[in-house]
């Protein structure tokens, strides 16, 4: 997907955010990377963007275990916003909770709301594929 211009990373681990941003930049130089510590902060900003008619991000990389509002809670609230907008915004969940045995279960449960579940630590190739 070369049409990606802005990517949203929601994760409370700052070192991880730093690293993943660098990796994304290596694949897609010059693109905007928005990072948030938790779901609440991300939602606040997204709502602002919506209100001020600013373009929403093209992709969201979402962690699960975060303080204040975790990934599941974010997803649930994000659906509301998503339904209001025409834009299709794929969400990828990247979490150390995900592993081979539960991947399919998660996919089934969140079906059309989450595009895929990716285990941490992230495999660079998977990330590259995701970004295309």
């Amino acid at each position: 997907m070369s049409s990606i211009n802005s990517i949203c990373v929601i994760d409370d681990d700052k070192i991880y955010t730093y690293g993943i941003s660098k990796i994304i930049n290596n694949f897609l130089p010059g693109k905007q990377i928005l990072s948030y510590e938790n779901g609440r902060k991300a939602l606040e900003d997204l709502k602002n963007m919506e209100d001020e008619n600013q373009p929403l991000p093209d992709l969201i990389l979402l962690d699960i275990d975060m303080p204040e509002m975790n990934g599941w809670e974010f997803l649930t609230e994000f659906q509301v916003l998503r339904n209001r907008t025409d834009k299709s915004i794929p969400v990828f969940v990247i979490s150390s909770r995900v592993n081979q045995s539960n991947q399919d279960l998660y996919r089934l449960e969140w079906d059309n709301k989450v595009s895929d579940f990716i285990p941490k630590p992230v495999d660079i190739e998977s990330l590259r594929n995701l970004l295309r």
Partner: protein
Amino acid sequence: MKDSVLFHQLMESLNELIYFKDTKSRFVSISKSMAERFGLDSREEAIGKTDFDFFEEHHAKEAYDDEQKILESGKPIRNKLQKEYLKNPNRIAWSTVSKFPLHNEAGELVGTYGISIDITKEKEISEKLEQSYEDFRKFSEQVPGFFYMFKLDADNNASFPFASEGIKEVFELEPEDVEQSAQPVIDLIHEDDLARVFNSIKMAVLNQETWRYDYRVNLPTKGLRWLRGRATPELQEDGSTLGYGYITDITYEKNMYLNNVQLRRQFQAIFNSVPNLIFVKDIDGKYVMANQSAAKYFGVSPDKILGMKDTDMGFSEEKAQTFNEADKYVIQTNEPLFIPEDKSVTQDGEEVWHQTIKVPFDKTGTDKPAVLSIVTDITRRKNKESELNNSLNIIGEQNKRLMNFAHIVSHNLRNHAGNIQMLLSLYEVEESEEEKEELMTHLSTASKRLNETIADLNEIIDQQYSSSDHLREINLKDVVNKIKEILTSEILENQVSFVEKIPDDLSLEYNASYLESILLNLLSNAIKYRHPDRKPKIHISAYQDQENVYLEVTDNGLGIDLKKFRNKLFGMYNTFHNNDNSKGIGLFITKNQVESMGGSIDVQSEPGVGTTFKIQLT
């Protein structure tokens, strides 16, 4: 008077049969009685006739021979018992006959004469008696036991003038052995019973009433036997007593009886000593049988319980109904019914549990169907179950915590390790020195975080295994002072002040390292989360009541929004301040330590004002 006149009268009147014969055994003269016997009209008709005319040949021959013998020997035959075979009509008679040689006036042997006394009747009687006796003997052989005639004479000599064959069976003696003296029997009587046997006989004789007695004998072959004697005494004119009686061996019955008695006693002992309630109720709900434990449980005396109903014993109508229905069910199905547990409340309000088995029971001696119930008190077992369940719950809780803990730890380890890996791979492809330096810094942080996680992990594991060891009596004030010493630099740096309300003598039995750790955590948190606008002031108070020791630590720091974070407060790796120092594992450990010592911890807080931790230590 002339002899011939006298003689003539004799011959005419005597019943005895008299005859005179010549040497050829021809009748010369016979008595009238004899003529009648022969069926003759007159005495003279017999003259010249012989026995052959009146008796069967073989008999007449024998008589003839006898007479010839007399003629030869000159010796009489006296009192010979003779069976006579008469003719006209043919019949048999018995006589006692005496025959003599007959001499004339000159002393010459001229024939024989004889006198015969008819004893046919006597003989018949005697034969009948013989037959009777024979029958009796045969009969007595069939009858077990021995019957007898017993004689006790005026000098107290005892004997058995008559003893049946049964004496062999009963006493291993012969009738002859006791005919003259009862001593052989007396010798056999068991020494412990001897006196009483004599007494009982004496009483019976004295009172002329039937003698009945059971006593033991020691027989040569059969050993110890029980006998039952019975006799009816009759006082005789000469002062002696005759007793007609019967003795039988009752060893078998006696043993059965004694066995029975013993069995009954054993049964009673078991029945009444077991703690289980054992009782039988009939289909109408009436008690037919109950053991002591049951009677005791119902609060009724054992002899009153029969015929009572459950309602008579204080059970409610409903409860009694339930019992009766269960019994009816058992009677209907004719199958046992097992009630694994049933709760009730005693009069004292205590909870008790029972286990019951009911079976159909038909040995009641009434025709009503009945049910036997055996009830066991399982209260102790239930209590143990309850304790066990509690333990299991606690273990379940601990397991949950452990799972949670394992989950959290693996998550964190993976994150930190993953970061290191990510940064290293970026470092490898990075060309810019500046970027490389930045990567290194982050790498170093990630590595530090990994180490911290591992250290936390160790701390938690250590804590899991050490709670109940190392208990000792600790003075609370001493511990507080010790912790304050450890935190001296932080206290001075931040100008922390303390208000303490701790009794000097307040001591408790506790794990020392836990107590220090708890206090250290609470105090360092209070200092760490101090309010930026004011100097930290920490209140520490401790007090105790009858059972427990309480500790309170209050600060004037940042406070916590409990509405949001109450649940997460004591969890692992949860932070709610945007403060990089806040890892949040401290309270998790504190809670575990407090709880493992059997206490509890609670918190009250107002954001911007401060926080109070309340701990029940014991």
